């Protein structure tokens, strides 16, 4: 069964707007990561947040983690057409296995 579920499944915004996507998971975790996948390519790591952290920033990315609600959000500020991609959350329970969500497809319209 899937450990993580993202919503929305698809998101379309205008360039310059902010994009927010959410991830929910089912069991306790060590950390949560966000990855990006451009069409036809492998996934690329964006950011990691540990279970004892609540918020983390990296450039235009802001990630929050609420372990009590078993949820995380990824905010991309001032979006660009080049941000068009699918975004996945991944959770690490045992340290050896990673569980990916089904992804959010983001389209940024120029």
């Amino acid at each position, binding site marked *: *069964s*899937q450990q*993580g579920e993202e919503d929305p499944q698809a998101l379309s915004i205008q360039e310059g707007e902010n994009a927010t996507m959410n991830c929910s998971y089912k069991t306790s975790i060590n*950390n949560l*990561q966000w990855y990006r996948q451009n069409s*036809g*390519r*492998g*996934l*690329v*790591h964006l950011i*990691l947040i540990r279970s004892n952290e609540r918020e983390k920033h990296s450039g235009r990315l802001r990630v929050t983690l609420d372990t009590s609600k078993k949820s995380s959000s990824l905010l991309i500020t001032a979006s660009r057409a080049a941000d068009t991609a699918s975004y*996945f959350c*991944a959770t*690490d329970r045992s*340290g*050896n*296995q*990673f*569980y*990916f*969500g*089904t*992804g959010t497809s983001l389209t940024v319209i120029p």
Partner: protein
Amino acid sequence: DAGITQSPRHKVTETGTPVTLRCHQTENHRYMYWYRQDPGHGLRLIHYSYGVKDTDKGEVSDGYSVSRSKTEDFLLTLESATSSQTSVYFCAIGGQGAHNEQFFGPGTRLTVL
């Protein structure tokens, strides 16, 4: 890309034939992973390896076997391919240590007719 290649990149085969996919890394990572990606399912772990000749099952391992005889190579074998194994297969390395991130290969698109 972090020194990780997959071969072949595309393959079409028939039901019942054996298929082997290869993942090769030049980063000397101890951990290597095989995932499959299907619409509506995201990425699901098939098998992973934590060292030469050390492997373990993931959540969708039925119908697949793996081998790792060298640090740099991790092979995924479908002994008798079925149409349900039509998918895009990704190899990944890393996932351990302080940063915990995985690096992914470009993927292999497999079609089983």
